[in-house]
């Protein structure tokens, strides 16, 4: 938290982070003091968490991340969701305009998380069955996916408005 944060922000922050509470609705929260500082603070937390997710190794056992585990990803995901809703809220988006990259960060985080989800899905499928007849295909796929994600920056991804569900 920013130092000397007012009581109201502390309460709001707790509500955002606590998985047992419903996420606060941006439209309904009162005026927030130091709103820009607060949003930047959450943005930095999200950036750190994203880095941890992306660099989390895909190896024999730990390809999938537990959001509620020791990594404590869940509060950060709630921050992300809260900021996403703030960006979509008219009355707040003008205030947030001062915090330049928040909406960019929200979009960036969504794409990165979905890329990681697919990567871990594909790598895990190989890991589940270990055998020698497949040569090094399993480990090669892991390295290939890592190289692929590094070489195709997320900015080039086009957003498809239609969500398919086979």
């Amino acid at each position: 938290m920013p130092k000397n944060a007012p009581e109201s922000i502390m309460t709001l922050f707790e509500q955002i982070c606590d998985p047992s509470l419903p996420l606060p609705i941006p439209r309904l929260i009162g005026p927030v003091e130091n709103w820009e500082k607060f949003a930047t603070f959450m943005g930095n937390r999200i950036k750190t968490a994203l880095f941890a997710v992306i660099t989390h190794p895909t190896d024999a056992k730990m390809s999938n991340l537990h959001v509620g585990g020791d990594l404590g990803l869940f509060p950060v995901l709630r921050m992300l969701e809260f900021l996403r809703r703030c960006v979509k809220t008219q009355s707040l988006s003008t205030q947030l305009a001062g915090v330049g990259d928040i909406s960019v960060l929200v979009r960036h985080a969504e794409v990165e998380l979905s890329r990681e989800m697919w990567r871990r899905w594909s790598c895990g499928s190989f890991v589940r069955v270990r055998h020698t007849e497949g040569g090094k295909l399993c480990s090669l796929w892991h390295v290939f996916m890592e190289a692929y994600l590094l070489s195709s920056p997320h900015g080039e991804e086009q957003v498809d408005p239609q969500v398919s569900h086979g």
Partner: protein
Amino acid sequence: MVDYLRWRSSRLYPGQKAWFGREWSRPHDIPLVESVYRQACLRDRIADPKEFVVTDDFIRWARVEVIQGMRGWTREMDAEKFARGQLVDKFVWTYSLYMVAGYGEAGRKKWISMAVVQTSDWLRDAM
């Protein structure tokens, strides 16, 4: 809370073209491979542990018709075609080959070990 996660995950997906575009025609006569492809194209996964990986029955990769189908597919594949494939294409091919090699008789056949070696080279080249 699971519903919340599902709702969020349905909004999360990588870009379509570079990842999910369909570059080659896959062998439609292997339903097992088609099912892997369908799963690879999902952008919405159920928050259930068995959905964390491809859901297939290992033993089905040992079936004669699957092995024959894969043999036909290996004849069509070459370095150039592989390089042209999108991410999903590359995954379905590599995974299917890996599974057929690991189950049943096919793993000891020369054509499949050749294909495994070649695919390893193609993957290295694609990095």
